[in-house]
C-alpha cells in the first residue's frame, strides 16, 4: 500500500464529493430562488406552506434526510432507490435549496424600495425590474453568505457515506479497517485544498462586483 496509491484512492473518493457538490449547486441554486418566491408570496397559503417546508428541512438533520430519501421510497412505495448518488443528490438539493432561499430572501429584502419604485416610474414591468435592476444587486449582497454555504456544502458531502456513497472519508475508512489510520486524517488536505480554491474564487467574484456600491 504505497502513499501514491492511497493518494489516488482518496482522490477517487473525492470525485464523488465533487460530483455531489456540483449537482447540488446546479439544482439547488435555481430551486432556492423558486422557494424564495414561494415564501415571499402574497398568497398566504403558498407562503405558509413554503415556510413550513423550509422549517422542516432546516429543522431536521441532513443525515436523517439522507436516510429518508434513500429508504422511504422502498419502504412506503415499494420502489427501492436504485442509485445511492441519486438519493444523496435529491436530499442535498432540497436541503441546500432551503438554506439558499433564505439567503436570497434576505438579499432581496435588503434592496431599498426606491429601486422598485424607480423601475415602476420608468415603465418597467415587475419582472423587468426584478431581473434587470434588483437581481444583480442581490447577487452582490449575498456573495459572502453564499461563500459560507459553499464551504459548508463541500464538507457536508461526506455525510453521504451514511447511505454508502463511496466518498472520500468512506474511502479512507477502508484503509482504517486494514489498520491504517493516517489516510483518514490525510483527507483533511483534500478538503483544505477544495475549500482553498473556493475561497480564492469567492474573493475573485467579490472583486468583480466591487466596481459599484
Amino acid at each position, binding site marked *: 500500500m504505497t502513499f501514491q496509491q492511497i493518494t489516488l484512492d482518496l482522490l477517487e473518493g473525492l470525485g464523488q464529493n465533487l460530483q455531489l457538490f456540483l449537482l447540488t449547486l446546479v439544482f439547488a441554486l435555481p430551486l432556492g430562488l423558486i422557494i424564495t418566491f414561494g415564501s415571499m408570496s402574497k398568497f398566504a397559503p403558498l407562503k405558509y406552506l413554503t415556510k413550513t417546508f423550509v422549517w422542516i428541512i432546516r429543522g431536521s438533520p441532513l443525515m436523517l434526510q439522507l436516510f429518508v430519501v434513500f429508504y422511504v421510497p422502498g419502504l412506503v412505495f415499494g420502489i427501492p432507490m436504485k442509485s445511492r448518488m441519486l438519493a444523496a443528490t435529491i436530499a442535498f438539493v432540497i436541503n441546500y435549496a432551503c438554506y439558499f432561499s433564505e439567503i436570497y430572501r434576505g438579499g432581496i429584502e435588503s434592496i*431599498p424600495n*426606491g*429601486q422598485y*419604485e*424607480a423601475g*415602476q*416610474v*420608468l*415603465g*418597467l*414591468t415587475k419582472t*423587468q425590474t426584478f431581473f*434587470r*435592476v434588483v437581481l*444583480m*444587486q442581490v447577487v*452582490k449582497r449575498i456573495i459572502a453568505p453564499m461563500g459560507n454555504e459553499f464551504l459548508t456544502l463541500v464538507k457536508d458531502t461526506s455525510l453521504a457515506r451514511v447511505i454508502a456513497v463511496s466518498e472520500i472519508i468512506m474511502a479512507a475508512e477502508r484503509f482504517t479497517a486494514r489498520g491504517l489510520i493516517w489516510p483518514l486524517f490525510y483527507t483533511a488536505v483534500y478538503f483544505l485544498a477544495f475549500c482553498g480554491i473556493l475561497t480564492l474564487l469567492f474573493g475573485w467574484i467579490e472583486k468583480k462586483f466591487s*466596481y*459599484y*456600491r
Partner: protein
Amino acid sequence: MAILEVKNLHKNFGKTQVLKGIDFELEKGQVMSIIGSSGSGKTTLLRCVAQLETADSGSIKVDGSTIFDSNSSQKLTADEKMKNQLKTGLVFQSFNLFPQYNVLENVTLAMKLQAKRRADYKENKKEILAEIDLKAKALIAKMGLSDKLGNYPCELSGGQQQRVSIVRAMALEPSILFFDEPTSALDPELTGEVLKVIRELAEENMTMVIVTHEMDFAREVSDNIIFMDNGVIAESGSADDLINNPQTDRLKAFLSKIGK
C-alpha cells in the same frame, strides 16, 4: 386645456387621513410648486399622481387620459397602466439610480426595454438601439455630464447623480415631470446645479410639479404654488402673490417659520 386635473382626491393610510379632498389643475407648460410642512400630505399627493400610491377616492386625469377614477368600475389593462405610467416622470429625493449601471446605461435601460415593444424592433434592432444611445448621449451632454457617461453612480457627487436621474426621467418624454424634494438629500453647495437644470427645463416649457422646501427657488421658477396643510390645499395662487401676500394664518406661520 389642463394637462393635469386632480379632483376631490382622498388617501388614507390605515386610519390616518393623509389627503382630504385635493382639487387642482395644471396647464401645459406651467410649473407648479407644492409647499407645506412635513406630514402635510404633499409627497403623498405627488406619489398618487405619479401612480406609486393608489388613492382611495377622487380622480386624476393626465394629458387627456384618466389614470385614476374611483367612480369608474372599468379596470385598466396592464398595457393601459403602462401607457399611463409613462405619461408622468418622477425624480426622487434620493435619486434611486441603479448602482450597477453606468450613467449611459441608467438613462437608456428603460428606453431600450420600451423599444422592445415596437413592431419593427426585431428588424431594425441595431439602428433602434444606436438611436437610443445617441438620444441619451445628447440629453446627458445637455446636463453637462458628457465626461461621466461611463461612470457609476457611486463615483458621482449627489448633484451629478440627481442630474442623471433627471435625464433618466426626461428621456422617456413624459407629459409631466414630478420632483419630490429634488434637493433635500444634497449638501447646500450642490443644490445650485440641480436647481439650474430645473430652471432650464422650465424655460423650455416643460410641465413640472415640484415638491420643495426651497422657497426662493419655488417663487422664481413656478407659475403657481400650492400650500398644503393637514391634507388639504390651504392656499394656492400665483407664486409671487402667495409668498408676498399670504392670506391664511397657517401659511403666514409656515413662511415665518422658514424665515420668509
